[in-house]
């Protein structure tokens, strides 16, 4: 090159255009940050929120938890103590008799 100062001068004078061209109009960076990163972030959010939290957490394991919880409540009734069963039976008989008598009057 005979006059290396010419491209140098152009570079400084049109530094903005030079930078733009040098970086290929920033298209690579744009793709990397917006499309690639965006898709990865979106995918991660869908996975963590959609699959892990909603579907697995609430629907699948939630169903199991509700069943486990209601069984836990229901099993309180079955104490295995005769006096407790007798008590509930007396209470039941009392309730039934009350209904019958109230109906009769």
């Amino acid at each position, binding site marked *: 090159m005979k006059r290396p100062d010419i491209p140098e001068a152009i570079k400084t004078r049109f530094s903005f255009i030079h930078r733009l061209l040098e970086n290929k109009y920033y298209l690579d960076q744009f793709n990397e940050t917006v499309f*690639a990163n965006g*898709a*990865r972030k979106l*995918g*991660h959010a*869908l*996975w963590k929120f*959609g*699959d892990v939290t909603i579907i697995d957490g609430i629907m*699948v394991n939630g169903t199991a938890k509700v069943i486990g919880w209601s069984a836990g409540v229901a099993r309180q009734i079955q104490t295995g103590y005769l006096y407790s069963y007798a008590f509930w039976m007396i209470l039941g008989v009392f309730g039934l008799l009350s209904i019958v008598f109230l109906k009769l009057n």
Partner: protein
Amino acid sequence: MQTSSYILSLTIWVPIVIGILVLFLHHDGQKNAARWVALLGSLLGLAVAIPLWAGFDNGSSAMQFVERFVWIPRYNIHYALGVDGIAMLFVLLNSFTTVLVIAAAWQVIAEKVSQYLAAFLIMSGLINGVFAATDAILFYLFFEAMLIPMFLIIGIWGGPRRVYAAVKFFLYTLLGSLLMLAALIYLYNVTNGSFDIVDFQRVPLGMTAQTLIFLAFFASFAVKVPMWPVHTWLPDAHVEAPTGGSVVLAAITLKIGAYGFLRFNLPIAPDAAQALSGFMIALSLIAVIYIGLVALAQSDMKKLVAYSSISHMGFVTLGFFIFNTQGVEGGLVQMISHGFISAAMFLCIGVLYDRVHSREISAYGGVVNTMPKFAFFAVFFAMANSGLPATSGFVGEFMVILGAMKVNFWYAFAAATTLILGAAYTLWMVKRVIFGDIANDNVRNLTDINARELVILTALALLVLYMGVYPKPFTDVMHVSVDALLKHVALGKLN
């Protein structure tokens, strides 16, 4: 008893009987004997299935190789078998895959060898039964029985969370199929006491009945496919399952769900299928896009391929519910192609896992430096998984997109995003695992694939290429059956 051949019975019972024989070779000194008997058994299973392809009449949509015996006369249940152009290919695919998984387990499975191999052989026979059964109760029996070996495979030879995964897999599929059983019993009453699937397809049904029947079968098959949002058992099952279990899950059992749609939902409830097609297409497209994005976020290779499978199966169900020849045939081609490709992907992951004992992408990097032969196959199958032309992955996707385009531009547009997403998650994984500098000592000490692994991967690669370059033999087989099915669906059942 109209019986023209015993080929289908052989494809079912040869693997099962040999599987039971293998169970007897359970002593420590008999491991190699068990392996050889199982391998010969699986090869024999494939050999007895070959006549299905060779003797198949492409010009007929009727069931072929029919066998029919009275089984339980009181309820009019038959041992009835037969395949049309839709089912036949899957009997072959399954018999072929069984050979691969038996060979792939050779040195890898060292504990309870005979039980492991027997489970696969027995499952192979049961799955052939699912595809060959033309009696609904027989179908249901095989459909449910198949769960047991898979449950054991995941639960015994699986990873650390294998019990959770196995139970989740079992409950999901079982719950779905109970509704199917209810539908079968209803249909039995409507047809005045027949469990013949052809009778189910002929019997006229009102719209309400059709809708309920459709949804009952949907519950069963959508879980199997799996369709969004009942898919979450699959990544768990894949991650915990041993390599062979993952291969059969991805290559075969997912196909049973899609096959069920074609065998039951479409022909038995054609009007409901059309009325609900928008719903089915929406779920399929969600699977394609949503699951494709989720696959991108995975750091576990098996989970990534599991999500990729769900996304690809979304393509299959999309193809089925746009009701044109290209869509349905494209879906079927995609099913077979995905059988080869997903099997190969899981085998490739298995090759790495056997050596490094990690499925994390971050545990690898620069594998190409130490395993050049393996890298060749891994990249090839990754390309096929992203749907590169001249591989089988392209053919099915292309046909489905063409079919979707005829129905609605936006369906095709949404479906085509898979070409971008599929390439993104597959190739990004390949880049991180295969290419770059050697990441750590584990990778530095890797040994390339041995002859056994080379043969397995080469067989799959040749099939992927063959089907990608010349899919005509496959579409020829299914063409007449698909046409007959679509005509039946278009006619409807209401009048």
